[in-house]
């Protein structure tokens, strides 16, 4: 295990973490502002991945594919917000779980009806198919560099939006104390509709970008949802900054766990035990991280509400 391998894994973890952040940012804002648990957020990620994969295949333009995926998903989310999610504010968390689980069921069948049951093979854009020589001895897939770049750019944009604009101020006000914000005349409903659409766009972007390096299939939304929830819980629900730090932490811990734990265990344990235990520990590493953080800070790293 040399330094180059470690560095490569760090980059992989960074890329995964940034994609997690794109998904978690919308989830945490929706939860922070409207106190609404949206299990169907992963379905928006799935929608982004499917639309992007199909448009890319049809048009051969990756940029167009990403743009269409985001636009379509935002439109779907807007309809969803008006029809269902808007009526869930102020309802019980469990009711929200029930309703958004219903949306997951409908979304999975809709995808099945439109694109079939077989997983799609999303291709990497031709221009980014090759590796880039980062430095001697480390060729790194250029597509993964794009992921990191895009993730960082969006994170920066979101940071500026939330901290330096008027709408960001309203969002922060809603997230830190919804009632007070309402008393002060903020139309929280409108802010929320905006945030929900923004979150959907970010989730779709993550789905479109992840499509070429992960399996595009029914159920991918449910698979990504849990790491995203872990991220927002570690970060402190409602905090974008917390989601950013936690996403990077989870991305690194998860990637490092898969890359380094199995070989490390093989070095110290009997082979049969290590073969069983290595992947298990790697799989649960992020949950252990979450349990540890919640033990030390029960409301997450950056509690949005005091």
């Amino acid at each position: 295990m040399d330094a180059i391998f470690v560095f490569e894994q760090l980059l992989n973890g960074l890329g995964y973490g940034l994609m997690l952040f794109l998904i978690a940012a919308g989830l945490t804002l929706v939860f922070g502002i409207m106190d609404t648990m949206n299990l169907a957020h992963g379905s928006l990620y799935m929608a982004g991945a499917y639309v992007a994969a199909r448009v890319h295949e049809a048009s051969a333009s990756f940029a167009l594919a990403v743009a269409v995926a985001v636009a379509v998903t935002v439109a779907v989310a807007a309809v969803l917000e008006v029809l269902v999610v808007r009526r869930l504010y102020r309802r019980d968390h469990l009711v929200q779980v029930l309703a958004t689980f219903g949306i997951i069921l409908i979304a999975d069948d809709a995808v099945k009806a439109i694109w079939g049951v077989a997983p799609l093979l999303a291709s990497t854009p031709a221009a980014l198919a090759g590796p880039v020589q980062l430095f001697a001895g480390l060729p790194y897939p250029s597509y993964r560099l794009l992921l990191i770049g895009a993730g960082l750019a969006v994170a920066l944009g979101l940071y500026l939006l939330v901290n330096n604009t008027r709408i960001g101020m309203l969002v922060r006000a809603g997230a830190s104390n919804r009632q007070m914000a309402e008393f002060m005349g903020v139309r929280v409903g409108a802010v929320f509709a905006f945030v929900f659409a923004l979150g959907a766009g970010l989730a779709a972007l993550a789905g479109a970008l992840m499509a070429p390096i992960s399996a595009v299939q029914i159920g991918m939304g449910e698979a990504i949802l849990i790491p995203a929830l872990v991220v927002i819980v570690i970060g402190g629900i409602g905090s974008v900054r917390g989601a950013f730090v936690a996403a990077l932490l989870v991305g690194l811990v998860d990637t490092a766990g898969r890359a380094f734990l199995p070989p490390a265990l093989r070095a110290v344990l009997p082979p049969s035990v290590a073969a069983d235990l290595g992947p298990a520990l790697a799989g649960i590493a992020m949950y252990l991280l979450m349990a540890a953080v919640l033990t030390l800070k029960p409301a997450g790293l950056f509690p949005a509400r005091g």
Partner: protein
Amino acid sequence: MHERFPGLARRLPWLVLALLAAFPLLAPAFGLEYYVGFVRRVLIVAIAATSLNFILGYGGMAALGHAGFIGVGAYTVVALVEAGFSSAWLAWGGAAVVAGLAAAAIGAVSLRTRGVYFIMITLAFAQMLYYLAVSLRTWGGDDGYGIYTPLEMGAWLDGAHPQVFYWVVLAIAALVFALFSRVAHSRYGHALRGIRDNETRMVALGYPVYRLKLAGFVAAGAVAGLAGGLLASHNAFVSPGMMHWTQSALLLVMVMLGGLGRRWGAPLGVALWLTLEEALKMHTDYWHWPLGVLLLLVVFHAPQGVAALFERRAGKEAAR
């Protein structure tokens, strides 16, 4: 119903029980043999759902990891079979005990948090168990583990009738249902409901809130483990998929569909959901979305669950 037909309300459970008990004998006459297995599965899932209804509906503990305990129970059966044991009672008892222990450990940590954090931490623990099962190749890992020799239930139970396992499951389900119904209306059950409604008040009144909640959580975990053990025998197959988080969510959905904290909520929800699933599967490949629409309808038009619809109607009639 309770006010108007006090006799019926008292007799209904026995009537249902008698019908269920007679079902395997009547089924062949109507060509319904296949459904004996189906009803057996409904009964097993109802056992798990009843335990979840107990902690969620009466205790207010929104655990989103209940399938984890079902899985622990199922894998306990696998471990015992792999080790060469063949007694069904030992396997199922072991399943309940091991799952109860797991629930004690997980509950001790999780019950320190509340609200959404409790939902998330129970989910996290269940996912840990899921990944543990995925990576344990000795017990099949990702592919699951087939139980090829049926477990023995004892001398006079085994060869008597092919449907003996059905009656055993029915007896256990009835026992679990009666037990939880009783406990829910005992002093302990009232304390639990008090905690659900106002935890601070119960602390102030001097109730050992944490211990009461933990006791409920462990009991529910053990019963879910028992259901998992029965499910392992029912399917003759165990796989990590049975403790994936979506299974926990489904269980939650079934309980809420039936009616949270209502006596008949859990079995009603399970029977309704699984029957619809079975019926839809027969007619179409797209059987998820009608269930999704059903959930939305329940949320917006019957938030108290299906069981409450009956109660409300009965209440109105009685008031007339």
